[in-house]
């Protein structure tokens, strides 16, 4: 590194600073605030100079580092470690993960907060696995997956509150409704390709949300549906004081009453639902329809010439993905006991797609890692409420920039021409 390099990188850093000033100057530096009537501007130059300084300094460090011509060693080491772990020990990893998930509620440090986060992560894992069928296997970019989640949640809520049927009857019904919506949307649009499909599904997600907001008579509009029945443990409710002549969970088993019982039950419920989704996906990949999905993703024209009907094949992927979304939706409804259109915005779809893509398309383990990572990041930044979504979006960009194929990109082909080489 000679003197010229330093001067060059110094100039470059100053240029970065100039750009940073242009970026942060108006938006951060001149904060608008309403006072009485009209808006006034409160300057905040301190923060701007701090940010600009950070940018200059950061850029300078990066430049100096790049002149040393050493790679970011730790990243490549980490990458190779990660891929070797997942390649050789995928099965061990999965079994350890499931075992850990099973004992998790009884670990000494597990409290209410951990359980809530774990349930949330599992919900996203399930949604990720469901969407993985559509995006990862069939290669259809669906940006409106939340619509099926919403359909599942609302059909569960409406059936359960209107007819009073139990969770175990409503759950499959909700799944069927969601699958039906999947077919309804898929039928006209699945002949579209790639990005057109993405924008249409996005539009569909918005249509569902707008209908949920405006169809007062059925969905109760923006106020949402309250009083959705909680699930029961095979007929035993989780109540402190059961009705006359009935048992509740804790009296039946002779336990001390605790709100944790219900939480733990919900945890196992979503764990089982998620594992069913996973098991189903792993199995269906080996069936003709699953192979047809993956073949379609790779080459549609070749599929057509081999007699695979692309529309029907895609439709099954869409419907099955939607069904799992519907299951996850009914779980969401029963856990929250309250749903409103606010829970089903585009950002949810974006998070689920991000989980699938960041995990590495089509990788089941990748979905788990990505959910833990992304939801974990927002939880770490929980105290900094305002900054958590910035951190979330930033993490999405960073993972893509450093690992464009996702965390676990090295997916083995499902089937090989001459059998497994090993």
């Amino acid at each position, binding site marked *: 590194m000679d003197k010229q390099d330093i001067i060059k990188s110094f100039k470059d850093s100053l240029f970065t600073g100039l*750009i940073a000033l*242009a*970026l942060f*100057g*108006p*938006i*951060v530096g*001149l*904060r*608008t*605030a*309403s006072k009485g009537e*009209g*808006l*006034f*501007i409160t300057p905040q130059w301190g923060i701007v100079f701090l940010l600009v300084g950070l940018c200059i300094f950061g850029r300078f460090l990066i430049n100096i580092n790049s002149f040393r011509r050493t790679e970011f060693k730790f990243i490549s080491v980490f990458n190779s470690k990660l891929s070797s772990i997942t390649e050789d020990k995928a099965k061990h990893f999965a079994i350890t993960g499931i075992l850990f998930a099973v004992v998790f509620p009884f670990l000494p440090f597990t409290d209410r907060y951990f359980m809530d986060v774990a349930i949330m992560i599992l919900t996203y894992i399930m949604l990720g696995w469901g969407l993985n069928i559509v*995006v990862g296997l069939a290669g259809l970019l669906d940006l409106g997956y939340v619509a099926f989640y919403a359909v599942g949640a609302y059909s569960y809520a409406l059936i359960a509150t209107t007819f009073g049927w139990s969770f175990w009857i409503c759950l499959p019904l909700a799944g069927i409704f969601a699958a039906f919506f999947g077919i309804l949307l898929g039928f*006209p*649009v699945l*002949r*579209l*390709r*790639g*990005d*057109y499909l*993405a*924008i*249409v599904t*996005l*539009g*569909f997600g*918005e*249509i569902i949300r*707008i*209908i949920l907001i*405006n169809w007062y008579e059925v969905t109760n509009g923006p106020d949402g549906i309250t009083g959705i029945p909680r699930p029961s443990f095979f007929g035993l409710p989780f109540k402190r004081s059961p009705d006359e002549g009935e048992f509740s969970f804790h009296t039946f088993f002779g336990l001390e009453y605790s709100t944790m019982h219900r939480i733990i039950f919900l945890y196992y419920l979503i764990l089982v639902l998620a594992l069913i989704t996973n098991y189903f996906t792993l199995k269906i990949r080996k069936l003709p329809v699953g192979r047809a999905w993956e073949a379609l993703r790779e080459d*549609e*024209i070749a599929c057509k010439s081999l007699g695979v009907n692309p529309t029907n094949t895609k439709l099954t992927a869409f419907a099955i993905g939607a069904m799992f979304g519907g299951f996850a939706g009914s779980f969401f409804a029963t856990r929250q006991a309250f749903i409103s259109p606010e829970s089903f915005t*585009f*950002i949810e779809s*974006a998070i689920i*797609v*991000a989980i699938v*893509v*960041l995990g590495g*398309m089509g990788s089941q383990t990748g979905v788990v890692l990505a959910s833990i990572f992304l939801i974990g990041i927002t939880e770490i930044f929980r105290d900094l409420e*305002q*900054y958590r*979504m*910035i951190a*979330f*979006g*930033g*993490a*999405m*960009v960073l993972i*893509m*920039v450093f690992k*464009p*194929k996702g965390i676990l990109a090295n997916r083995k082909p499902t089937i090989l021409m001459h059998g497994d080489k090993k």
Partner: protein
Amino acid sequence: MEYFIQQLVNGITLGSIYGLIAIGYTMVYGIIGMINFAHGDIFMIGAFVALISFIIFGLTGVALPIILLLVLLIAMLFTACYGWTVEKLAYKPLRGSFRLAPLISALGMSIVLQNYVQVAQGARVKPMQPLFSGGLEFFKNSEFIVTVSYLQIFIVILTIILMGIFTYLITKTDLGRAQRACEQDRTMTALLGINVDRTISITFIIGSSLASVAGMMFVLYYGVIDFYIGFLAGIKAFTAAVLGGIGSLPGAMLGGLLIGLIETMWSGYVSIEYKDVAAFSVLIVVLIFFPTGFLGKPDIEKV
């Protein structure tokens, strides 16, 4: 009839705003084949920069046309910086990687920009006093008086001027030629000695500047903005771009006008709550019959 004309005027105004945003989408899609999800938020940032400069110049008491011109230039300049930086940070490292990677990166960038503005400027809606007042009135003898406000005239004329400049830029200059070459074949263009990276950066700069003009119009037209306006305007503009045929510049403008008209007609005659549903449903219907939009090139699949 008079009511129809009024809705037509409103629709054309709204359509101009959508069209200007749609150009950014369609240009970026044409040149690097990705949906730039952050573009709606670039538009939102343009609206904020315009609002802030309107407040600053509003205090100085300069004549209105000068203020408008200054704000226009300032909004374009600062917003272009955002477009440029977003491309450098989030899309450039992903060039040549698989198709979904830039899309996810763009989604992340969109979340970042939205929340960044929310943190920096606050989550509440920002109202602005109207700068324009009055307008031309037609059909004074009938029951319903059609009003074309000066603001609407300003928006439509500004759009036409910008479209003129822009069309000239794309069809007649070296820059435009380089850009169209990049759209067709990036490797070949690079071999012919054109700086592809620079051309792509300029595409982002032009797209962002046009979006910022749309942002300024939005501030003037609606008088309220918040950090969330980028999302809906963004997806509608993208819908417009797809409707017109993505990758086609006149298509983007046509699609914008159509979406604007559908939206105002629907809210005028059917129901205002479902105006967004109308726009998306039309998109679905159009794509079934014209899979590449109205003016898009038919996309031939080759083995």
